[in-house]
């Protein structure tokens, strides 16, 4: 399949008074057209930072470092001037549903007015045309046109999330980054939103980057999974490779899966990962996971393991998984 996005050696550091926080350190992956790539990991592992980096808008004091490449549909957006990114990339080609975005709708404007704002910023159209387009997109996410006249407080969480998704799709982007789109929602509403996203993906031939900490949800939606730890990729593989019989290769993924309680199977005891993710100003030497790893060897604390392809399409960064 054709490649839509290629990320090469992406590094994003937050330059604080205490030193540079290496939030993303040498992250490389690609995304094919029509594919859903899942980003999973604990809080602070760099999932959301990857998302905002792809929009080329790290929050200050963050900075994308020299040598990082984000190649979208054949051109490196790192080399483009900000004006060009703003006009032709952000929201036009890549859009994002931010975490908790449904709670960030302005309480004093109606939904219609807030949606119009996005259109006016990017498209030259009169109010009537714009309203027609809004009605069309509201119908796509399963909402009646009346909601245009309503205020955010008059709607439930599920409805607000549908609005946010519709707004992210307006300008027909090719890639949509979804950051924990269902975390604050109830299970039934979550299932409704997931089904909606799957439908929209087919209709618009979209590619998704799906960010969540919920491994069960990731298994449900993603074609390939990228497990991140402390600003680096620990393991990247297809749904089958990560969740299959053979199981994941990286000890971190293995532990994360064992820590996930299952609904349909009685588990007597869950395992967990002792300790906390490291301080990214001064990450541990060698493998960043070694202080918490249950399979640690001498080599792990000295040398950093490279991300190696151990079977077609399955990349692991662990000394235990050498060829």
């Amino acid at each position, binding site marked *: 399949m054709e490649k839509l996005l290629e990320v090469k050696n992406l590094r994003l550091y937050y330059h604080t008074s205490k030193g540079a926080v290496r939030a993303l350190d040498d992250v490389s992956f690609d995304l094919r057209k029509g594919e859903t790539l899942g980003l999973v990991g604990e809080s602070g592992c760099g999932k959301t930072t990857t998302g905002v980096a792809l929009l080329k808008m790290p929050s200050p004091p963050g900075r994308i470092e020299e040598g990082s490449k984000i190649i979208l549909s054949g051109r490196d957006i790192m080399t483009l001037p900000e004006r060009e990114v703003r006009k032709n990339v952000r929201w036009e080609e890549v859009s994002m549903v931010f975490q908790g975005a449904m709670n960030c709708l302005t309480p004093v404007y109606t939904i219609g007015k807030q949606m119009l704002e996005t259109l006016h910023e990017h498209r030259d159209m009169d109010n009537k045309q714009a309203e027609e387009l809004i009605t069309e997109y509201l119908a796509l996410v399963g909402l009646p046109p009346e909601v245009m006249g309503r205020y955010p407080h008059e709607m439930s969480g599920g409805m607000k999330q549908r609005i946010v998704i519709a707004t992210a799709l307006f300008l027909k982007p090719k890639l949509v980054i979804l950051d924990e789109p269902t975390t604050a929602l109830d*299970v039934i509403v979550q299932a409704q939103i997931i089904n909606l996203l799957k439908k929209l993906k087919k209709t618009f031939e979209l590619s998704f980057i799906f960010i969540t900490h919920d491994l069960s949800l990731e298994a449900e939606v993603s074609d390939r999974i990228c497990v991140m730890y402390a600003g680096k990729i620990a393991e990247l593989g297809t749904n089958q490779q990560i969740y299959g019989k053979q199981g994941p290769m990286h000890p971190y993924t293995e532990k994360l899966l064992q*820590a*996930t*309680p299952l*609904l349909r199977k*009685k588990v007597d005891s869950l*395992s*967990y990962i002792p300790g906390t993710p490291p301080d990214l100003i001064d990450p541990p030497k060698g493998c960043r996971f070694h202080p918490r790893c249950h399979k640690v060897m001498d080599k792990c604390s000295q040398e950093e393991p490279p991300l190696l392809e151990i079977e077609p399409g399955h990349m692991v960064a662990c000394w235990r998984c050498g060829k």
Partner: protein
Amino acid sequence: MSIDKNDVILEIKDLKKHFAPHQSLAQTLTGKNRKVVKAVDGISFDIRRGEIFGLIGESGSGKTTTGKLVMKLIDPTSGTIVFNGEDVTNSDKARTHAYRRQVQMIFQDPYASMNPRFKIKDVLEEPLIIHKIPGDHVAHENMIIKALTEVKLNPPEEFMGRYPHMLSGGQRQRVATARTLILNPMMLVADEPVSMIDLSTRAEILHMMKDVQRDLGLTYLYITHDLSTARYFTDRIAVMYLGRIVEMGDADDVIDNPLHPYTKALIDAVPEPETGKVDVIKELPISGEIPSPANIPPGCRFHTRCPYAKPECSAEAEPELMDVGNGHFHACRRYKEI
């Protein structure tokens, strides 16, 4: 510890909590009454000594209000709460104070429930002061060390001097648990204790809470929206919908053989990490969202969203909880057909 079926520690009978909205004098005079919000609308259940009882529901189901009623943080509109053989529903201030020593609560957000200016030692000493536990500074300190040891924060002396911001989420929730244990309670009410905690630590906290429960012979009321942790953590569960219990029974039994269509839908909505099983979530049979508790549908309150609803479901009186044997209760009159 084996659980004796007849040894009930907490008995809730037909408990209701209706919130009357504020209304202006003009509204009262003109008789335009605003609708009463029926957050909890007649629930009954028993919790046995030494068991973990789970209360499951979506937002707006009344699970948190039930927790608050059990803690006596709010007064019920009607119904009774019997704890350890004593009716505590309308107890006076002194009695309530003593009751709260026996029934303690763990809150959802360990970040917000601790004073950031208190050292851990002060956080843990506060309940001792509030409940006037006799003893000098040294005696209190020994109790604090004991409580911290129980939740496995080692070495306890080192943690006592720290401030909440110096701890990780998991450690904070351990401190929150230690703060409840220091009063030697009989029962803990835990409202979503792990929903704010990172996935790798979530299992650790549930583990710790289970250990503490076993070691000290405690009883838990565990309130959550998460069926998967409930299955792992609890002995029995009750599923709430719009202020009522729709299904109740042994946790494994309810999840493996759900009888009520609402419970079925809840289970269908949960994804599972299993291969060959991508797209576990099917097109859901139930649509829409939970109605407002100020406007509860007549008859069976689930009929507006139920895929199996028939005219009689809305016309006839609301079904009561029925036992199918083995202590598995449900409130659906058509459960056999579906």
